[in-house]
């Protein structure tokens, strides 16, 4: 019927190393000859010839298959399975069918190659059924894994159905054995190659039992021939179907496993990233908030919710606003609205207070997120900056207090001078001293007002000229943009202007009603150097003084050093001219060699 031995031999050759093939073929030959001697009445020569045909068929099939697919197991990939079906199932049986039919024709047992189709079909179905089954049995034997209860139950149900339907079909109670195909497919798709081939094996086992022992429709000799052919075809079809169901199911399972693995990997990566992000947020004490503009809903993370004195994480913008300090409420809502409607840049920073009693200062940074061209979400962070704000407030208080003390101390110094220099000839010295102290105090004052960071040169000049007649006597030509000076430079310039003014009032342009002073300042092209010039005109003719007073000493020695710059004082006959150059330290903080460049 089907020649299973050739299938088994083929499977053994596939698994065994090539150098062992001789042994396996020998063992198979011995087994077949023994069976032939026991059950069949072939002559030894004929039996040997038949077996040789089978051996050549199996060896050629195994060799070709291994050459093409380059691996032993063809049950893993559909393409390998196809190649197996073509080479071993369809082509290899041609060899043995041709050899055996030739022998039978020559010996006269079955003339005219009449037996060829029977042998071909018998071997083909034998190989298609037995090879995968044997291979699988070997694999299963090598790799035993645990089986769950559910699987056992399903396998039992499958087995019982298969036996029932198979028995009924072979016995003739059902019209055709093809009714078992769905069960084979079930087995294949559920249990992959193992299920498919085991079911096929079961069917194969049932059929001869019926034909040999219990008797069946095959028992009738007249119908036997046709029935056997039908059964052979059925088993070939069943084997191919089972193989493909199994291999496809295997592929499917592999794909699912790969998907699950990559999914697990992704999940792990996402979890890792989320954990790191939240650790960073925690370290920065940042909360996250998300405002949906179309419906006004708000989502906060735990930290943001805590900052906002809320217990819930999902709320509305309106609820959020009720928690904001009344003084900041409208500012916040307007700012958010502005960003949302695209009237402001996409990212803003808002500082506001949350809570009415003991409010906390927070900074909210939001970014506009677009969807289909429309801003739909504002997403960003919220940070508690109360400590920073409080520190700033304290610092401001401290600076105020300090400047108050400085001014008070300078007042005391003035008062002491007033009390000390009381002699008739000390009057001028006393006044000069008091004025110098006042100039110093004004410089300090200006710095204190701007938080000791920087003073505006424009303002500094404007205040310096007030005691000497202001804009009536001075012509100011400020720089195009406001110039800011750090504390030391600002005080130096204030002192310089005071000395120049004092001198002008005593001996220069300001000592005469028509005299004027022009003060011009500006920046160099690269904005790194400040230049200020003082030009007196309309005063009495000027001559360089014979001895240097404190004023000129201050201008030539102290001011350049404090400015990190240069002062040039020229006593022209038509009026004193002074030019001051200094590096702009607030804009160029590093690597500027002022003296090198200026000299």
């Amino acid at each position, binding site marked *: 019927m089907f020649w299973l031995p050739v299938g088994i031999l083929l499977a053994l050759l596939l698994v065994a190393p090539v150098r062992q093939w001789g042994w396996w073929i020998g063992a198979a030959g011995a087994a077949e000859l023994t069976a032939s001697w026991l059950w069949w009445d072939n002559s030894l020569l004929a039996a040997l010839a038949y077996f040789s045909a089978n051996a050549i068929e199996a060896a050629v099939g195994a060799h070709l298959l291994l050459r093409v697919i380059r691996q032993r197991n063809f049950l893993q990939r559909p393409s390998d399975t196809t190649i197996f079906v073509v080479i071993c199932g369809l082509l290899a049986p041609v060899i043995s069918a041709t050899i055996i039919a030739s022998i039978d024709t020559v010996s006269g047992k079955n003339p005219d190659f009449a037996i060829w189709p029977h042998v071909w079909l018998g071997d083909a179905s034998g190989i298609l059924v037995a090879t995968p089954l044997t291979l699988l049995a070997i694999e299963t034997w090598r790799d035993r894994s645990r089986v769950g209860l559910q699987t056992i139950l399903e396998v039992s149900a499958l087995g019982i159905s298969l036996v029932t339907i198979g028995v009924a079909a072979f016995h003739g109670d059902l019209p055709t054995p093809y009714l078992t195909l769905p069960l084979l497919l079930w087995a294949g798709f559920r249990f992959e190659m193992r299920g498919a081939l085991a079911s096929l094996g079961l069917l194969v086992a049932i059929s001869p039992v019926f034909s040999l022992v219990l008797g069946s429709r095959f028992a009738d000799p007249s119908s036997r021939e046709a029935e056997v052919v039908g059964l052979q075809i059925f088993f070939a079809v069943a084997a191919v179907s089972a193989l493909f169901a199994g291999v496809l199911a295997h592929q499917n399972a592999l794909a699912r496993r790969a998907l699950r693995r990559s999914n697990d990997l992704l999940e792990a990566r996402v979890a890792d990233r989320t954990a790191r992000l939240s650790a960073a947020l925690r370290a920065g004490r940042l909360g996250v908030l998300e405002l949906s503009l179309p419906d006004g809903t708000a989502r906060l993370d735990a930290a943001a919710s805590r900052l906002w004195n809320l217990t819930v994480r999902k709320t509305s913008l309106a609820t959020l606003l009720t928690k904001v300090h009344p003084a900041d409420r409208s500012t916040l809502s307007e700012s958010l609205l502005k960003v949302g409607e695209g009237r402001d840049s996409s990212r803003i920073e808002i500082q506001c207070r949350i809570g009415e009693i003991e409010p906390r200062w927070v900074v909210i940074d939001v970014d506009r997120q677009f969807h289909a061209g429309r801003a739909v979400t504002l997403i960003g962070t919220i940070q508690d900056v109360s400590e920073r704000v409080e520190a700033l407030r304290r610092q401001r208080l401290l600076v*105020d207090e300090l*400047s*108050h003390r400085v*001014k*008070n101390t*300078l*007042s*005391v*110094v*003035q*008062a*002491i001078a*007033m*009390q000390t220099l009381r002699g008739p000839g000390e*009057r*001028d010295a006393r*006044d*000069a001293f*008091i*004025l110098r*102290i*006042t100039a110093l*105090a004004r410089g300090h*004052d200006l710095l*204190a*007002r701007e938080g000791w960071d920087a003073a505006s040169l424009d303002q500094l000049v404007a205040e310096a000229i007030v*005691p000497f007649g202001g804009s009536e006597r001075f012509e100011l030509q400020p720089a195009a943009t406001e110039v800011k000076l750090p504390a030391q430079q600002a005080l130096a310039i204030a002192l310089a202007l005071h000395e120049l003014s*004092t001198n002008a*009032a*005593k001996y220069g342009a300001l*000592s005469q009603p028509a005299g004027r002073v022009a003060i011009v300042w500006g920046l160099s092209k690269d904005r790194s150097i400040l230049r200020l010039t003082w030009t007196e005109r309309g005063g009495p003719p000027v001559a360089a003084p014979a001895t240097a007073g404190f004023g000129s000493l201050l201008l030539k020695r102290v001011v350049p050093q404090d400015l990190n710059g240069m002062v040039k004082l020229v006593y022209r006959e038509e009026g004193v001219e002074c030019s001051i150059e200094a590096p702009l330290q607030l804009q160029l903080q590093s690597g500027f060699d002022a003296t090198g460049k200026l000299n």
Partner: protein
Amino acid sequence: MPHDPIPKVLAGKRVLIAEDDAILAMYAESVVGELGGEVLGCARSSNAALDLLNQSLPDLVLLDVNLGRGTSEGVLQAAQEMQVPVLVSSGSNPNALPPAFQDLPTLAKPWTPDEFAIAAASLLLKADHAIFGFPVRAT
């Protein structure tokens, strides 16, 4: 600076000095004296200043904002009720002054005798032009 003799802008005027720092009070006294004024008294606290105000009617009060432990707001109020011109003297940042002191003629410490002379003269000029207690702008 060539020193013109300081005009005696306070000639015949009586000045009350409210200043808690003794040296600064002495300084103010000297300046008032040089300008020809008469110092009615130097108060080192708000209470002392109020007493002096009640005892006599000065022509001008030189008022330190921080007097003793608190501000001199009470003295300012009393002086304003008595329509005595007040010249504020302060070492604080102008915007840090209490509201009552803002918009008043203020001398920023340390001030020079000239600054005091100019501020005092302009205040007294306005006071002299006041008719029945209503000040009119001196042009």
